[in-house]
């Protein structure tokens, strides 16, 4: 018998609220997080058809300030942060020297010399060390505000209509990737018209000690609490890659379909990304058998790659998967995925699997 030393799981400011809502809690990236409340499918459907709310307070927030804030971020990210006006946000990558990804992040421009980065929960420590290392050459100040913020994601076609009566900001004037301060339900928050579900919605930055009270008010508006289970099926249907699955330190990120994230500029990973990626990310649709991460993908009986994320799509009603396959085998129409020793047919389909009307 073996045992692993137990590290206490971290808790978000909403931990008690999750237990009160009857959530099933699971360890996720070092955090004790709700995987579901009523059920993955019901929560997924609520976000696709009405609106749901997720606790994403486990994600990290770093503030970057100073005369070189923009220049520093140009160097350590692949996208063009100088295109961002204050009040706008952008999806971006933190490359490493070898051309893999330290993390995929969101960059919010607060002012001319001030940005906020939102990073993946499990990468907070690694990202912080990486940024510190590269900051030495720049006149910037980095602060880790991860413990100061609660972060709630209100997602779904009815998100705007539900929130509008309770805020002083005209939400319809705030387009995708807008980032702005607001008064919402009596709380001073920052809102971003961003999300990870393929639906319209807002991410709400609230002071950690006010997060539970705001969560309660949002549930009272009729928002369905949604857990990590639904977050994963929603993001997979939307074709969004997930760090640790479609991205990693040693994985060429241009294997993904998000090649537009890399702009022609000097950045930490530029040399490492010169070579063409040896694998490509593809979408697969299956008839009945769900396929999971790590299952082999076959072409003409030969193993050409493996599934990186897979689930049964609640919206489409059949299993879907993303897979990394050898670049020279990425153009076929039909593959097979090996499930418990048996090969099942899989069609290649364009990503995303689901796009809102």
């Amino acid at each position, binding site marked *: 018998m073996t045992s692993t030393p137990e590290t206490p799981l971290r808790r978000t400011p909403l931990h008690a609220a999750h237990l009160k809502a009857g959530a*099933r809690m699971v360890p996720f990236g070092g955090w004790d997080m709700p*995987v*579901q409340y009523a*059920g*993955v*499918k019901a929560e997924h459907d609520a976000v696709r058809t009405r609106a749901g709310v997720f606790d994403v307070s486990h994600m990290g927030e770093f503030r970057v300030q100073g005369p070189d804030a923009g220049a520093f971020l140009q160097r350590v990210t692949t996208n063009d942060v100088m295109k961002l006006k204050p009040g706008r946000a952008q999806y971006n990558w933190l490359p490493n020297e070898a051309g893999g990804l330290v993390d995929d992040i969101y960059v919010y421009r607060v002012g001319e010399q001030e940005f906020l980065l939102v990073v993946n929960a499990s990468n907070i420590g690694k990202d912080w060390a990486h940024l510190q290392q590269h900051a030495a050459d720049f006149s910037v100040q980095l602060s880790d505000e991860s413990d100061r913020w609660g972060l709630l994601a209100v997602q779904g076609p009815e998100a705007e209509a539900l929130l509008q009566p309770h805020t002083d900001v005209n939400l319809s004037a705030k387009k995708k990737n807008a980032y702005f301060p607001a008064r919402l339900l009596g709380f001073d928050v920052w809102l971003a018209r961003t999300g990870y579900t393929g639906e319209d919605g807002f991410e709400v930055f609230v002071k950690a000690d006010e997060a539970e009270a705001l969560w309660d008010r949002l549930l009272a508006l009729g928002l369905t609490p949604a857990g990590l*289970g639904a977050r*994963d*099926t929603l993001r997979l249907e939307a074709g969004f890659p997930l760090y640790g699955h479609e991205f990693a330190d040693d994985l060429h990120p241009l294997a993904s379909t998000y090649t537009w994230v890399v702009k022609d500029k000097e950045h930490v990973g530029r040399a490492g990304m010169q070579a063409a990626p040896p694998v490509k990310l593809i979408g697969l649709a299956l008839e*009945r*058998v*769900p396929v*999971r991460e790590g299952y082999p993908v076959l072409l003409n009986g030969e193993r050409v790659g493996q599934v990186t994320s897979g*689930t*049964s799509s*609640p919206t489409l009603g059949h*299993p879907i998967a993303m897979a990394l396959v050898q670049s020279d085998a990425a153009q076929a129409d039909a593959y097979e995925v090996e499930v*418990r020793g048996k090969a099942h047919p899989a069609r290649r389909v364009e990503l995303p699997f689901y796009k809102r009307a």
Partner: protein
Amino acid sequence: MQTPTELKYAPSHEWLAPDGTVGISDFAQDQLGDVVYVELPEVGRVVTAGETVAVVESVKTASDIYAPASGTIIAVNEQLSGSPELVNSGPYEGGWLFKLDVTGESGDLMDADAYAAANG
């Protein structure tokens, strides 16, 4: 959580009826969440108690189902191929998995009280 008293229960959450019918418990289906696929054994297969004989897949995970006793598979629930959600809605009725002709020994099976106490 329902735990019918006429059934025996394995620690791995399968139930075994006196007539050899096997399914998963109400507790197990609740833990799994929405069942989306069930892979059943072939009729005629001879199995040993504790052996993996089926797989129940929810949206999130695949879970192995073990034979609660040794015997031969004499029937499988064909309804599950079109309606796997029966495992959630009726774990002791329409959601049964397979029938065993029990010929050998059972695993460590519990009565309803012991099972309910272990999973309370």
